[in-house]
């Protein structure tokens, strides 16, 4: 399992966080779990990069934090997407799709 994991390219973590939060507000641990689950354990987010990324996104105004209750009734910091964040997600996701399609095309060249 370990050797199936790959490092995230620069800048994609932000995109993944935004995409995850587009579904529903989530706390930091929830975000990392969700990314791991959906990517079938290929992508694992380290805490060391997750939290600085969250703080950076919050400063840019793409996500907003508020305190809420977790499933097991503990106080947790939930992040949710702002309108600006949604716009950013749309444009970045579009760019990413274009890029990956182009890269795939080049790689699949006969």
């Amino acid at each position, binding site marked *: 399992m370990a050797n199936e994991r790959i490092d995230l390219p620069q800048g994609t973590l932000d995109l993944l966080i935004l995409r995850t939060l587009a579904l529903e507000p989530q706390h930091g641990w929830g975000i990392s779990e969700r990314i791991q689950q959906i990517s079938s354990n290929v992508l694992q987010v380290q805490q060391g990069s997750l939290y600085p*990324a969250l703080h950076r996104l919050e*400063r*840019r105004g793409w996500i907003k934090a508020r305190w809420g209750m977790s499933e097991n009734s503990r106080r947790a910091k939930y992040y949710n997407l702002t309108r600006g964040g949604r716009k950013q997600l749309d444009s970045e996701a579009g760019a990413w799709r274009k890029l990956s399609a182009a890269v795939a095309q080049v790689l699949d060249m006969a």
Partner: protein
Amino acid sequence: MVRDLLYRFRALFHRNVVESELDEELRFHFDEQVEKYVRSGLSRKEAVRRSRMEFGGAESIKEDCREARGVMFIDTALQDVRYAIRGFRRTPGFALTVVATIALGLGLNTPVFTIFNAYVLRPLSVRDPYSLYLFTWQKRDGGGHLFTWREFQDFEKQNPAFSEVIGRDPVPFVRVEGHTLFGDLVTGNYFRMLGINAAIGRTLLAADVSGPGSAPVVVISYSAWKDKFAGDPNIIGKKLAIRGYQLEVVGVAREGFHGLGEVPREFWAPLTMAPQLEEGPNLFGVEQPQRLRIVGRLRRGLDQRHAATALTIWARQRTADRTDTERATAAVLHSEATTIAMDPLVVAGLTPVFAAFGLVLLIACANVANMLLARAMARQREIGIRLAIGAARARLVRQLLTESVLLALPAAVAGFAVSKATIDLGERLMFATLPRGFTEYVTLLPLQPDLRVLGFMLFAAVLSALLFGLAPAIQATRSNVMQAARGEFTTDFRPARLRNALVVGQVAVSVLLLICAMALLRASNRIEHFDVGLKTRGVVAMDIVDKFRAKVVQQLASEPSVRSVASASKLPFVGSLPWMPVTPDSSSERSWAGYIYVSPEYFSVFELPIVRGRKFTAEEAQGGEPVVVISQATARLFWPRGDALGRSLRIEQDPQQPRSLAENLRIGIPPQRVVRVIGIARDAVNGYVGYGIDQTCVFFPGRADAAGYVLLVRVKRDAEVALGTLDKAITASMPGAVDEIHPIDEALTGQLYPYRAAYWVSSAIGCIALLLTLSGIYGILSYLVTQRTKEIGIRVALGASSGSVVRLVLKQSLKLAGIGAAVGATAALGVSRILASQLDVFVFEKVDQLAYGMGIVLVIAASASATYVPCVRAARIEPVTTLRCDLDSRET
């Protein structure tokens, strides 16, 4: 953007809240992770262990989060500040010395900037000063143009570039109630266009300037009202006798307005009073003299270049029908936004001054850099350890620079106080040392500091912090981590070359400044002790208003205190002689000669002996006969063989039009004809004192009461006392008749004053530079001795005498001083050449050997004496103790 800022602010000022939130967030994550492992079947202990391993250092995550929040920069800056202040508290002597040194450097530079600011940078306190331009046109010979009344009227109607124009005509100094005043005659829209209202009373109105001689009124400046009329509350309605006319004061202009032009104006009278208040031809008469200056407000949306083009076309058309030399070639616009417009000439003139003061600041910075280097050396261990445990070099450099800036800011505050004191002292000294009669003529713009001055101080302070802080910071953090860990700090740390370069630079600057000071002093001494060839003691010079001239000459003749009265077309010593082309009968080649018109009594008033022949008779003077007296030097030049007496001289037509028509009219160009030499006078200075004995001087006979001539009165008693009685006697019968009255000795000292002042300023800064240099040399040598204690100890242990140890230290210092002196003296060669061309006086030698010798000897001797204490310390080194404690002694 705003949100970003708010976020950063919250992060910065609610640091505790934010930090504890971060804590809680990370703990939540950790606990959830543990729960997840427990759920998957691990024991709680194992789950905690695994989570902890995955998590890594919570502190470094937090640090990264702080960075992401964007407060790191401010955070670390605050840390650095706190750290630096703790350091200064431990070594207050060091901090104080640095602050005092930089404060001195800044405090000396700021007054120069303050003066520059007041004259060149500060906009005039008038409405929209940046749209005001002085307009003139250039003629073929490159000279400017003053306008006639008719030209002004045409321009007012036709001008293509200005929305409004004013005409002004400066009135030379006049005396009113014993005070000298300088003013302008102005058109009726002057105050309205400049947006100046009155402090009390009213300003001039268009109605005051409706026709020639229309309104005998005057507006005075606020500072003239305060200083020369003692703030008289009943000034409005008072009648002032200006040049014998009674002008009623109708108002005082608002505070801070000093008129247009470089010299602050003290009164403004209607232009229509010109025929009454001005000498020479009537401004409104048929002769149409060229006198007016035109200042206009540029039309909105028009820039200077386009305006100049439009005006050039206008000026060329307007002068198309004139003679070649009178035709306009191009229009010229000078900004009137500040008192002195910034142009290349002003910059060239001020550069040496700025350079001299700037050098003092540089020396101060070099000193401080040296001190910081020594301190950095002592802190090598600390810095090495910090590098070893992972501090980034950039971070350390930033911290050391923070220290420098923290030292520079209090220095700026202290420098501000020093500068204020310097300006006060300078002004007081200037007025105290000026010849008594001249203080009235010198009016300074107010020299209060403003925002620009504060900005300059801050800028200079931060710049000097970078200057003195950057090199030590980079040097100090260069050390190798491995060596630092082993406790070896000196191998890679070689600031010696930099430190030596700093000392050499300081010595060079001191030598340069002291040589210049010395050369200036000797020049001014030489002028002072220079025999001008005229007996000036007991002679009073007077400028008289022409319409009173005949009566004044009459009255002087009957005054009991007066011995004799002469007149001359120019005051001796002040201004050079005018020149004319001549052909002596001894040759066919034309040469040039200086000339002056004098009445026959000139020779007796100044006791100037006629060595051969005779002086003019009263009849020759009255009739303007074709006879001349020449100076000995002139005789030798034109008739090198044989006797000049009885020979003749042909006065030629000047091929170039005379430069200034006003001058022409006043003194008269000698008519073209042949004149006979009837006498030879001893050599003397009749021209400008700075040029020395006249190389040529031709005396033409002049009438005692000729218009525009200066009266020279030999009195029986002391000139100073007689002056008072004469002034009173004349003013009593003819108020406003005397424009200027001085003992002629005072005019002479007045001419010397700038050199004296330049000498004082340059020796003051030279001495300060020397003092700073000495402290610099002292610092570097005592540091050197401390650093080499071990080596010296070994030498002594091996049998070196204390004499040889002292020689070692002395040699080091003298080598630096020698190199510095050589560099400084070489620079002085260049600088004194510039000075000589700027000063333009015969007594200023380009290479004044004595000045060079004295400057160099003084600095080298002083450098040697600065080594005394370090030498003694080196000689006292005990070999046993130094060998025992090797490292610690190096760090003291």
